């Protein structure tokens, strides 16, 4: 068991290192130097040189990479060029928005997809199945930033039930949650569409299995056989898809954060790139990568919980 975990840990370490090299090189070749991005059109060459020195940009690339990597190991991510504050603090602030947003979106997506997918699978070709298929196809086709706009127009402005954007901070948890509801829904709808399709297909396949018939032969009703026997065994592909989606959600939320003006990780990365705040971008990408790797680990663990056959492997 330990050997297996060690091998996995080694795998993550290699991936982690690979990403750090990939990102650092990308940052080196991206055109436009941070100093000129800060000092604008009328800066003189010496002021630019002075700022580059201040930012520590004059050191050779290899040294800067090692300094950054060393910092990562000891937990200090360095100072942001634009704000001059520790990047760690900046990112934590933004994670306090992105993680709950993604969590809420996943909950909503599963909340919509599981019941819809399962009821559709219960009677293939029935009304529920038609509705689920339509929802799935439509949901996938519509971009999430577009749904976001519609939600703002109708729910926030038209009906006034929820704020139209912005984030009041976790000082007032109730208001913060209300602010996250609409963006989470905008993220959840396309994801739930894909999830519905996967759930439906998987449950339909499991319904044909013999043990579902055994359950019915024991006197279990159709719905009990469906929920107690078929669904638990249909979860593996659903979890796989969920794992893929979570990593997409975290990375893809830039657009929705933009439309709902949420100070999330996406916008931090977007602003940092515009201002060529390289240290912030590098660390944001590393944090993203860590989250995605953690999610994959979580998905593997979830497999073993759902399917005892996989338990032996973990």
């Amino acid at each position, binding site marked *: 068991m330990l050997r297996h975990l060690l091998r996995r840990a080694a*795998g993550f370490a*290699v*991936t982690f290192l*690979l*990403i750090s090299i*990939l990102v650092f090189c*990308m940052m080196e*070749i*991206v*055109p*436009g130097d941070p100093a000129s991005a800060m000092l604008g059109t009328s800066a003189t060459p010496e002021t630019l040189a002075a700022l580059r020195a201040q930012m520590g940009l004059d050191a050779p690339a290899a040294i800067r990479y090692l300094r950054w990597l060393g910092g990562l190991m000891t937990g200090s991510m360095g100072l942001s060029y634009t704000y001059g504050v520790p990047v760690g603090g900046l990112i934590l602030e933004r994670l306090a928005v992105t993680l709950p947003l993604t969590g809420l979106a996943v909950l909503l997506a599963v909340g919509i997809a599981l019941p819809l997918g399962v009821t*559709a699978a219960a009677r*293939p*070709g029935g009304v529920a*199945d038609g509705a*689920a*298929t339509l929802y*799935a*196809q*439509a949901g*996938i*086709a*519509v*971009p999430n*930033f*577009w749904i976001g*706009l519609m939600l703002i*127009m109708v729910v926030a402005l038209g009906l006034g039930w929820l704020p139209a954007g912005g984030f009041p901070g976790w000082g007032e948890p109730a208001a913060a949650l209300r602010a996250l509801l609409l963006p989470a829904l905008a993220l959840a709808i396309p994801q739930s569409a894909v999830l519905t*399709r*996967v759930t*439906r*297909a*998987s449950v*339909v*396949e499991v319904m*044909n299995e013999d043990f579902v018939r055994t359950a019915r032969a024991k006197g279990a009703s159709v719905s009990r056989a469906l929920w107690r026997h078929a669904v638990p065994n249909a979860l*593996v*592909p659903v979890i*796989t*898809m969920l794992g*893929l989606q979570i*990593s*997409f959600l*975290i*990375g*893809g939320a*830039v*657009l929705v954060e933009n439309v709902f003006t949420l100070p999330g990780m*996406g916008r931090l*990365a*977007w602003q940092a*790139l515009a201002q060529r705040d390289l240290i912030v*971008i590098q660390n*944001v*990408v590393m944090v*993203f*990568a860590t989250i*995605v*790797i953690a999610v*994959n680990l979580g998905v593997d663990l979830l497999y073993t919980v759902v399917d005892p056959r996989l338990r032996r492997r973990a």
Partner: protein
Amino acid sequence: MTALAKLPGPVLRLRRGWRPGSAALLIGGILTACLVGIALTSLVWTPEDPARMRILQKLKGPLVSGLLGTDHLGRDVASMLMRGAFNSLTTAFAAVAVGAVLGTLAGVAAAAGSKFDAVLMRICDALFALPPILSAIMLGALLGPGALTAIVAIGVFMIPVFARVTRGAAMQIWAREYIMAARMAGKGTARITVEHVLPNIAGQIIVQVTIQLAMAILTEAGLSFLGLGLPPPAPTWGRMLAESQTYLLQAPHLALAPGLAIAVAVLGLNLLGDGLAARLDPRRRQAS
């Protein structure tokens, strides 16, 4: 991860017991054919020149000026949609080609030899862990916005998906008895891959191709929203959608036209994918 390989869509069966999935294949096929048709005709003929501006005629509603009205610079929305179809489709097809070819190669190679497996999968993990939109922005900044950037940005992030799908499917095939037989017959890994593995997983790859095509069109819309898609004056659905955003109240048709176009295109491609999946996937035929 083989669970990922099974991503079949719904199976629409008509009462008279058609071959499984043929309804999806039919509808999907028709929609996609129309799409490709419109895209190609747009090269030869469009109601108006998509780039021609009549600023004084701007923001006119559908049927008031031209079939679908005009945009904020007075250009004819219908012509832009047609030319946009061509641009969006070519970008999507090219991007999927990049993703599919490289991804499949990586996946199959990974499934074939164990020493490739670890390395390729690590690279895929690394690529996969990079947030897609963010990396596209970085690529945009690197290569400068343009058709090439859009294709590379969308295509590169499909490689891990194709790699995982093909690796999962190929591993299943490798485990089959008839592969042992082929090995016994002295065939090398490469020949086995080409003759046995690829044909058997072709179904799943084609399904992924259609799904990823749909995703590519959406990602291109996202990129244009961030100003990274094809440069003007080439109209794309993504940029039309992005530019329509601030006119949502005055001219809703500006957002609806590209939005619906994307929806229909993605619907058609997905249905086509499902139909192909039902037709090509042997296991699926008995089950339904």
